[in-house]
């Protein structure tokens, strides 16, 4: 478990993180105006959003200070399971070519 004292009032760290998230938002806006394929765009946006969310969750929501067991049990499992879910998508790309015979 982390040290008890400095969790609540670490205003400086919070502000830094806040600006980091804002900066990343800037990156997102920039990305949005790039001319890329929507699928690509989605991937990039989600990647950045993921970092933002991680920062917010770690610092603002103090996950950083949470029990080690909790972090060990929960985070890898959830991320892993979500990643696995992407296997569903493998179908969706194929389905594009297999629309019904009727017009």
């Amino acid at each position: 478990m982390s040290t008890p004292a400095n969790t609540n009032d670490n205003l400086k760290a919070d502000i830094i993180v806040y600006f980091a998230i804002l900066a990343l938002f800037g990156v997102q806006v920039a990305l949005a105006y790039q001319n890329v394929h929507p699928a690509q765009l989605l991937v990039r946006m989600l990647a950045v959003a993921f970092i933002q969310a991680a920062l917010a969750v770690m610092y603002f929501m103090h996950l950083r200070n949470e029990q080690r067991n909790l972090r060990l049990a929960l985070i890898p499992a959830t991320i892993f399971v979500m990643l696995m879910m992407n296997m569903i998508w493998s179908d969706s790309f194929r389905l594009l070519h297999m629309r019904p015979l009727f017009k």
Partner: protein
Amino acid sequence: MTTLGPSGDLRLLDDFSPEPSRTGIWVGLAAISMSFAAFTSALIVRQSMANDWHPLALPSIVFVNTALLLASSVTLELTRRRVADFARGKAPDRSVAQFWLGSTLALGLLFVFGQYLAWRQLRTEGLYLASNPNSSFFYVLTAMHAVHVLGGLAGLLRVLYLLRQPVFALRRSTMDATSYYWHFMGVLWLYVLIVMWIKL
């Protein structure tokens, strides 16, 4: 064995033994994330399957709602600090904390109301739940999110109730758990918004 005061109150601020409600909230958030991941997968598969995809212009009010929800996170964080001040004896009473908490609640309610307005706007455009997949997903995602937000509002109400008790009865873990959940609603909303913005 650590013992906590009879009410386990915030005045024993430095007790950092894990509190079930804090663990519980993280576990709950994992489950909620998973549910929304499932919705996202459904959306992606559904889109590639569809010959009926009609891009949907998000009602502009959702951006106002976004601002409201994010602002409510800030006010909640202010609440938390003021409560801590009070618990440490740095603040004379709880009125400031109550004020910020009240603002959070109000902003949250406004958010839900704003979402309702967004639905109304879609309806006036003739887009109902079953009109096309885009509107279906819009309603489902926003409604599911709103349901979770309502849960958060209930939590905040409880915190407010505890905060107003004559004898200070708010446990630190309750405050924390509720506010993590609430912040998560903000994060989740941004996620939902991005997904809808790009995909719908």
